[in-house]
């Protein structure tokens, strides 16, 4: 009977590091995997030598592996790989960059945002977003004039995460960006402030040409909670997309927009159960006694979710 060691052991770092010099790319690639497996910062010097590996599959593995390390050195390695000629490598590096949490990584990432390739600039801003670094603000604001929509969207993300009143003009301008994704991010982001300018810009976005932006605007207005949005939201109740109508109902409920009870009640007769439900929910939020009759008329709605919501709303009316 033999005794054995039951615990995981990640091997000898030096020995694995040696394999990074093997002639066979597959062996080098497996060495990268094994080194990353240790999750020990000691392996970084070894790993980083692979940034210049001639084989793209090895660099790809490295781009994935570096996400295991929340260290400045890893950020530096990824910053190089994000500009890799091989797009798979670059994409993996961009994804890994976005995993970093250590604010110190910002220094290595910042130079990327003035790179010649739009992909790299976008990846840079994407990586900077969660780090919430003040230093990234200037470049991000400037990048709102970038010709590439994805770069603008990512840069706007950096601005939005910082939640600074001083960025309001930038965010407001972005609600009129040429790109729908950018506009969506902007209307979503403006809910952090109670400045009237924000509510006004988001309300204007209720007329956006893209329904997803209109829906995002309605949702955002619910969070902002300014009564100035009530008229716009009420108009939104006849949007051609039910998805937008639904969000407007929800927002009006949150705003407790008593003056709109009649318009909201009209949607209780919609042929879409989801709208009837949202309408009952809004009436419950507003809790105006004048909606009792319309709610009562739907206590026996064919849809159980609507019935439930109507019952809930009626209890709110008292």
């Amino acid at each position, binding site marked *: 009977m033999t005794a054995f060691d039951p615990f995981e052991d990640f091997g000898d770092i030096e020995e694995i590091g040696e394999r990074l010099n093997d002639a*066979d790319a*597959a*062996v080098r*690639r*497996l060495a990268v*995997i094994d080194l990353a497996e240790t999750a020990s910062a000691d392996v970084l010097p070894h790993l980083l030598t692979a940034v210049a590996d001639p084989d793209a*599959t090895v660099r790809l*593995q490295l781009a994935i592996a570096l996400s295991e390390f929340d260290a400045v050195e890893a950020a530096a390695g990824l910053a190089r790989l994000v500009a890799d000629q091989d797009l798979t490598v670059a994409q993996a590096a961009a994804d890994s960059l976005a995993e970093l949490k250590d604010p110190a990584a910002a220094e290595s990432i910042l130079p990327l945002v003035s790179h010649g390739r739009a992909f790299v600039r976008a990846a840079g801003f994407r990586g900077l977003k969660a780090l919430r670094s003040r230093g990234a603000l200037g470049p991000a604001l400037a990048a709102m004039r970038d010709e590439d929509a994805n770069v603008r969207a990512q840069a706007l993300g950096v601005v939005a995460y910082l939640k600074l009143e001083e960025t309001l003009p930038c965010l407001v301008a972005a609600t009129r960006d040429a790109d729908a994704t950018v506009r969506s991010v902007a209307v979503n982001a403006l809910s952090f402030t109670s400045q009237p300018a924000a509510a006004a810009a988001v309300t204007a976005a209720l007329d956006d040409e893209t329904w997803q932006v209109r829906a995002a605007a309605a949702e955002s207005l619910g969070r902002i909670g300014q009564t100035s949005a009530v008229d716009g939201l009420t108009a939104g109740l006849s949007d051609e997309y039910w998805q937008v109508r639904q969000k407007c109902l929800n927002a009006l409920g949150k705003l407790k927009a008593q003056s709109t009870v009649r318009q909201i009640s009209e949607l209780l007769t919609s042929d879409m159960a989801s709208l009837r439900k949202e309408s009952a929910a809004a009436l419950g939020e507003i809790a105006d006694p004048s909606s009792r009759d319309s709610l009562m008329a739907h206590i026996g709605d064919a849809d159980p979710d609507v019935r439930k919501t109507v019952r809930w709303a009626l209890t709110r009316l008292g």
Partner: protein
Amino acid sequence: MPLAFSPTTVPVVVDEAKCIADKGCTVCVDVCPLDVLRISDLTGKAHMKFDECWYCMPCEKDCPTGAVTVNIPYLLR
């Protein structure tokens, strides 16, 4: 009570041309929660040894060379 051999079609397929188990890779074997993959002594490549799969896909996701394909087990398909 002698045991019989009953054939079964296994859901997980390994592309032997891509698999680098012969270079020392054991990633899919390591990650499988049901422990049903093995490296074949015969071919030096990974394969599904036991038909006991939750079609959860770590094997496919973590394989460095994209050699693994997880299909839905026949009885569920």
